[in-house]
């Protein structure tokens, strides 16, 4: 994509985000849009890992849980500033990711996927069982509002702007990362690990960095979630089923397309909200739609659209040449 197009897309994204709350003008839907932004932040991080480093995490919701519960525990028990609590959350998630990543990422294959699955289950069980500390299944309540420069973000519109500013920041950070040295290393190891290693790419370390960054983004999302609903429990959106939903967001939006993750998060969350009206049919419909999208658009929504455009352009080019 040329730099000019990039600027145009960013401006369009900014204008859309700025205009959305007045257009929606409905507290419930703005709340949903906040949740889409939170899902998008976690999905962007997971897409860096899945789409660029070629590794899958099946326990990413656990890093969200670490984020959400660290914020919840520190702000309600110690009265520390929510921003400091959030920084601690990011550090803790990064530390856990490092511990899990070091032994598994030096191996070839999908060992990280299995290890993160285990970590995710263990985190859920600890959060459920250690009730003195975490509130058990009923969770923790009265998590305070975030405030910015002395202004409390005490309604959904203000919080919407904060969350979506952070979505933009995550997108910017990630797209810069994949165009940097680390990004080139990632693309190199994606096409051929041996060749990349021969060219001096430290494969294990590059993958580890991306995994830690993706865990930190998930923790940020979890912490934002805690300050959005002021309440956390070990399950929604912190357990295995949300880990799976995050993977679905990434694949549905399109692997290795960062805007795809935002589209994927919006699709999964809005679909979930819409399908709820179907009552007991919602689970079945979600599963069927997921399978159908992948059968017909294996590269995801944005990935599929991009390849359609490319095919059309190639066809147009061929027609002009003849």
């Amino acid at each position, binding site marked *: 994509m040329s730099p000019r197009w990039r600027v145009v897309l960013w401006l369009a994204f900014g204008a859309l985000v700025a205009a959305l709350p007045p257009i929606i003008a409905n507290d419930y839907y703005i709340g949903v849009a906040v949740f889409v932004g939170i899902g998008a932040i976690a999905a962007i991080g997971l897409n860096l890992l*899945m789409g660029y480093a070629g590794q*899958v995490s099946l326990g990413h919701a656990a890093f969200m849980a670490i984020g959400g519960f660290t914020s919840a525990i520190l702000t309600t028990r110690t009265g520390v500033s929510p921003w400091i609590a959030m920084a601690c959350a990011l550090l803790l998630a990064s530390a856990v990711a490092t511990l*899990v990543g070091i*032994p*598994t990422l*030096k*191996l*070839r*294959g999908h*060992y990280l996927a*299995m*290890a993160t*699955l*285990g*970590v995710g*289950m*263990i985190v859920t*069980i*600890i959060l*459920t*069982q250690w009730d003195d500390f975490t509130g058990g299944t009923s969770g923790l309540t009265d998590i305070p509002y975030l405030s910015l420069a002395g202004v409390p973000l005490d309604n959904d519109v203000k919080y919407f702007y904060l969350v979506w500013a952070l979505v933009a920041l995550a997108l910017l950070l990630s797209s810069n990362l994949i165009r940097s040295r680390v990004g080139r290393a990632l693309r190199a190891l994606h096409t051929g*690990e041996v060749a990349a*290693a021969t060219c001096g790419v430290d*494969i*294990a370390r590059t993958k580890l960095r991306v995994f830690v960054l993706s865990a930190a983004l998930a923790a940020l999302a979890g912490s934002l979630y805690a300050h959005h609903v002021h309440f956390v429990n070990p399950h929604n959106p912190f357990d*295995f*089923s949300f880990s*799976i939903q995050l*993977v*679905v967001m990434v*694949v549905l939006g399109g*692997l290795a397309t960062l805007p795809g993750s935002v589209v994927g998060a919006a699709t999964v969350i809005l679909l979930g909200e819409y399908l709820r009206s179907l009552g*007991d*049919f*919602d*689970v*079945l*419909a*979600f*599963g*069927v*739609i*997921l*399978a159908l999208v*992948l*059968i017909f658009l*294996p*590269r995801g929504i944005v990935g599929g659209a991009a390849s359609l455009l490319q095919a059309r352009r190639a066809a147009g080019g061929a027609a002009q040449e003849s």
Partner: protein
Amino acid sequence: MTLGSQTLQFLIAGLSVGAIYALIALGFGVIYNATQIVNFAQGEFVMLGALLTVTLHHSAHLPLPLACLLAVLGVVVVGVLVERLAIRPVRAAGVLAMIIVTIGVSIALRGIAMLIWGKEHVPLRPFSSVEVVRLGGAAVLTQSLWVIGITLAVMAALHLFYSRATLGKAMRAAAITREGAALVGISPGATVFWSFALAGGLGAVAGLLIAPIHMAAYGMGTMLGLKGFAAAILGGIGSSVGAIVGGLALGVLEAMGAGFAPAGLGGYKDAFAFIILLIVLFARPAGLFGGGGAGEE
């Protein structure tokens, strides 16, 4: 009760749950060998086997052996349909797409089960009218003995299938080298098809065996599937001996852990399988019987 008889009691309970994990792990391995994918719908095959048996036996009043047989056949058909309708269309798109499709399938099967059977937990009557027997001072569920016995029979049949039947030998060959097997005329497509049939059958047997011990319900497949997956990793995914040893070891460790855990820590029982999973991944990633699949960089 003495410590010895208590240990025996936990051991038998653990072996029976472990046998279930082993059957599920075998199902994961069969599909992994044919496709290199982890089938997230394996737990749902277990759930369907349990619920179908309950319906056929309790509502349709079929005799238990017939109900079990029909339930297994039913889930075999489900497995085959999953392969034809969902897996085959995305095979060109790669392993990750297929795995995500199995996630979609597992969610859809859970949804269908919820519509058919509702959200209640339904019990299956134990296979014997005598529910508990005394064995060396330990109180043992007769159902545990059924589970262990039938699992052993299934494993013997599976061994014969893999060592004698042409199809079984073909599936083993395709697991070792798909291209080589294709060269001698073993169709990769057929291998995948039969692996889903077999995985469906194994899952169904696990489900109908566990249904009298744990209740059957539309959501029972998730945790059982994940435990079976942990067992498969512990043994080394794709290895049949590994799946059996991994499943039994996991079941026994879990039962001993929960039985002898200090008061208050029993709630962490479900974490055992996953802690073991992590230890295996960190210390011996290829699993106990895995053949060098995990090369270090």
